[in-house]
């Protein structure tokens, strides 16, 4: 039994110019101890899928799904309270903007403790010990002194570490990282990715990496889902994807990487886009 299984997920938004299909029948499967990368460009619906899973979409969105199971339990059938139990405790998420994701009014120690307070029944002294452990685990120097720091007193990389500490506070079985390093510098990105992988390996949780960066995919993923405009283009393990991509979109995406450039000009996805549009016409016709 996979950790998370989603079948035929569709999400539609209501907008000024009529309904907009953000996701059109995508499937995901994640096992424990596995790193799944969802890769796509803006508008591919890569974040929407996970927001739908977490129940974080706005009211204008309509979600339909054939199957959405976490550890064999149907998430769509859970009551709001049970769902909250699962989400936040067993599934947690970190976001792109670490500084904006932390509440600027409270100290770092308080915010991590808050997550523990809601989902565990540790005593307050146990909690503060656990918070220090967590900060140590995510590699923040002098964790004791950092407890009473506010988010604005820390750098972006450190804020992201705190976010990770919050996310793993309740030992989740699945961690979703939505572009966790996009706002960070390259050297910091490396550290954060290494940290995420280390934590994932140690705890054996499932990890979903949402990213647009092929480099990040290559450095982290076991399996990859490639998305384009709300549809799934390809799913394969990471080596196969880079060695012999099946779908023309993946091929185009890989050849657009500047490091793969041969000769004067970079190949672009535009030739392929025409192909896709003709595909879309076929579907609608």
């Amino acid at each position, binding site marked *: 039994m996979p950790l998370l299984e989603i079948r035929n997920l569709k999400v539609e*938004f209501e*907008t*000024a*110019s009529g309904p907009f299909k953000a996701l059109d029948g995508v499937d995901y499967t994640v096992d424990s101890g596995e790193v799944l990368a969802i890769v796509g460009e803006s508008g591919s619906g890569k974040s929407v899928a996970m927001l739908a899973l977490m129940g974080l979409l*706005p009211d*204008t969105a309509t979600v339909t799904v054939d199957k959405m199971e976490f550890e064999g339990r149907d998430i769509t059938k859970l009551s709001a309270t049970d769902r909250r139990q699962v989400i936040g405790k067993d599934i947690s998420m970190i976001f792109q903007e670490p500084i904006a994701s932390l509440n600027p009014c409270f100290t770092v120690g308080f915010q991590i403790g808050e997550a523990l307070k809601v989902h565990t029944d540790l005593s307050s002294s146990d909690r503060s010990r656990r918070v220090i452990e967590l900060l140590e685990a995510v590699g923040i120097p002098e964790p004791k002194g950092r407890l009473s720091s506010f988010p604005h007193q820390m750098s972006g990389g450190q804020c992201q570490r705190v976010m990770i500490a919050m996310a793993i506070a309740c030992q989740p079985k699945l961690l979703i990282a939505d572009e966790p390093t996009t706002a960070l510098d390259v050297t910091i990105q490396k550290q954060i990715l290494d940290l995420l992988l280390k934590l994932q390996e140690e705890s054996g949780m499932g990890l979903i990496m949402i990213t647009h960066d092929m480099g990040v995919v290559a450095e982290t993923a076991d399996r990859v889902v490639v998305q384009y405009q709300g549809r799934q283009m390809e799913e394969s393990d990471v080596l196969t994807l880079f060695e012999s991509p099946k779908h023309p979109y993946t091929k185009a995406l890989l050849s657009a990487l500047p490091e793969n450039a041969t000769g004067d000009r970079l190949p672009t996805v535009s030739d392929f886009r025409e192909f896709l549009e003709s595909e879309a016409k076929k579907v609608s016709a």
Partner: protein
Amino acid sequence: MTNVSTTETRAKGAVAEKLASESRNATKAMLVEFWYYFKQNRGAVIGLAVFLILVVVALLAPYVAPHSPDMQYRENFLQPPAWEEGGSATFLLGTDAVGRDILSRLIYGSRYSLFIGVVVVTIALSGGIVLGVIAGYFRGSVDTFIMRVMDIILAFPSLLLALVLVAILGPGLTNAMIAIAIVLQPHFVRLTRAAVLSERNRDYVVAARVAGAGNLRLMFKTILPNCLSPLIVQATLSFSNAILDAAALGFLGMGAQPPTPEWGTMLAEAREFILRAWWVVTFPGLAILVTVLAINLVGDGLRDALDPKLKRS
């Protein structure tokens, strides 16, 4: 030769025409989107309808009103509305203490209310925009000076300040409007300044400066159009505030002077008949209430439609 050049100019004209129509389409698309978000708010649409009816009534007052607003019918003092005992269809909403038709006075009064709103908002808005843009754009001591003056104005209770100003300038509708505009101005200054502050360091402003735009152009052509949304909302809300304040000043005898059929003044005149003839106070009061409510609802709708933070992408 001439043939070639005429075809060329014709081709150019066609291009220009195509560009112009494309440009109109873009503007139209913006308006369509605006309307979509505006009509999501049902209250705002109702408010807009009421307000439009009010505008039509005010414009067509001489044709709509059954009587002249100043005509005194000696034999019909304090006649109740048509559906009450003793009322008649000639005076639908009854007559006041000197025998004038209340409905006609209300209809003519709407002209004053709208006039007051337009004039006050225009003065307050234009003054507020100029001061606010200057304060926000130049910062430093200019900013401090302007904002402290505005703080002083804001430190007075607004109606009290308006009263003092009217007392200095002398009672009358014009002076009342000036006083109200001065009282409302600081809100516009602060709002404009805040908007300018958040816009002035955006990349497009820097880009315009690199392209060689001077201070005046940056202030009013580049930055200001992007600050208008909150100002439009504030202007609608101030419109109703102005009507309310003018009515209050009228009620206190400092605004429009009798026999002007201004709603607040009508209320003041009817004060002593509250117990004997409810209709003389109720209808002007209702007119003020409905108008202010309608405009505030429109303001809410505008906020929904214009504030990009509330918009769902």
